[in-house]
């Protein structure tokens, strides 16, 4: 399917570039609807990539690229479930989202995340699954999961370790603080920092540049320089599930859900 318009995202291809646009209010939180449509995209990617040389992922939401997992849906979904069913539900979701992230990570095409604003948790993980991150100067990256008694569960830790020095990974994970795009670039996370509102334009210009090179060579080079840490990714799911069953996590989720603020776990 060369183009698709769903409830949470859309994609289209033009001039050899696939554009995947996230668009679910308020800030592209990843719940079951988004996961389903991301799976559709992942299923179509090989076919789309045959006639393309780049994929650009961006967000149509003013608030930012993606605020992470839909914690409200997660909390509601857990109610009235016995512990075993809760764990099975969480593990199923994680394995499915990992399937999507792994497909993106290994895509036979150069992938660019054009990010702005809030790029937190699962949103940060989605960006990390791409080859390049182009960030608007107002972007903020964050792994807030420790604030909720969890770790990132969508593949963020192995991918962050792949890209950054261990000290930077410890800083982001253990403090749960957010960093801006300039800091992200100094760490080697962000390829280019752009003016406010300009990330998509710069990502598209970069995609045009990518089209000048032999596609097969680019795919071979990518596979050589970007290993996928499959063993660690599986281990991350196990650790997340172990942590998830702790009472502190449900308490943290309840506090989140009961707040009317967009990001109640900050600062």
């Amino acid at each position, binding site marked *: 399917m060369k183009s698709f318009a769903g409830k949470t995202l859309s994609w289209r291809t033009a001039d050899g570039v696939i554009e995947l646009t996230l668009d679910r209010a308020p*800030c592209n939180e990843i719940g079951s609807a988004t996961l389903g449509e991301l799976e559709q995209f992942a299923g179509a990617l090989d076919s789309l990539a045959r006639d393309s040389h780049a994929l650009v992922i961006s967000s149509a939401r003013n*608030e*930012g690229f993606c605020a992470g997992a839909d914690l409200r849906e997660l909390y509601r979904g857990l109610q009235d479930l016995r512990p075993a069913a809760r764990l099975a539900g969480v593990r199923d979701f994680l394995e499915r989202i990992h399937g999507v992230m792994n497909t993106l990570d290994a895509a036979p095409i150069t992938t660019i995340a054009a990010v702005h*604003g*809030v790029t937190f948790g699962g949103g940060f993980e989605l960006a990390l699954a791409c080859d390049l991150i182009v960030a608007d*100067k*107002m972007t*903020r990256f964050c792994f807030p999961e420790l604030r909720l008694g969890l770790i990132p569960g969508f593949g963020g830790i192995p991918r962050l370790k792949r890209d950054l020095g261990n000290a930077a990974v410890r800083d982001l994970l253990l*403090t*749960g*603080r*957010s*960093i*801006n795009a*300039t*800091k992200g670039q100094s760490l080697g996370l962000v390829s280019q920092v752009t003016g406010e509102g300009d990330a998509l334009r710069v990502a598209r210009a970069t995609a045009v540049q990518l089209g000048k090179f032999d596609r097969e060579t680019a795919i071979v080079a990518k596979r050589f320089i970007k290993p996928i840490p499959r063993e660690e990714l599986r281990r991350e799911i196990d650790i997340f599930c172990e942590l998830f069953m702790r009472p502190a996590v449900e308490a943290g989720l309840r506090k989140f859900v009961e707040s009317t*603020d*967009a*990001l*109640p776990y*900050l*600062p």
Partner: protein
Amino acid sequence: MTTIEKTTDEVLGLAAAHFKVPREQLSPDDDFFKKLRINSLQALDLLTRLEQHFHIELPDYELQGVSDFRTLAERIQSRL
């Protein structure tokens, strides 16, 4: 070295300009969430603009319990 008074004034000016509130309506002891009518997302936006303006890095946990401009300016001042 920039004085705390100048830093505070710059914080108030930047906040007023970005959130389109008349500068004269803001004072250092105002609660910036209430006065600017912002939520946590917009507070992050303000944080990024302040980091860029002052060329500093300000971890958001430094803002734990901070809701007035004066204390925000003190946190910034300590990084200059």
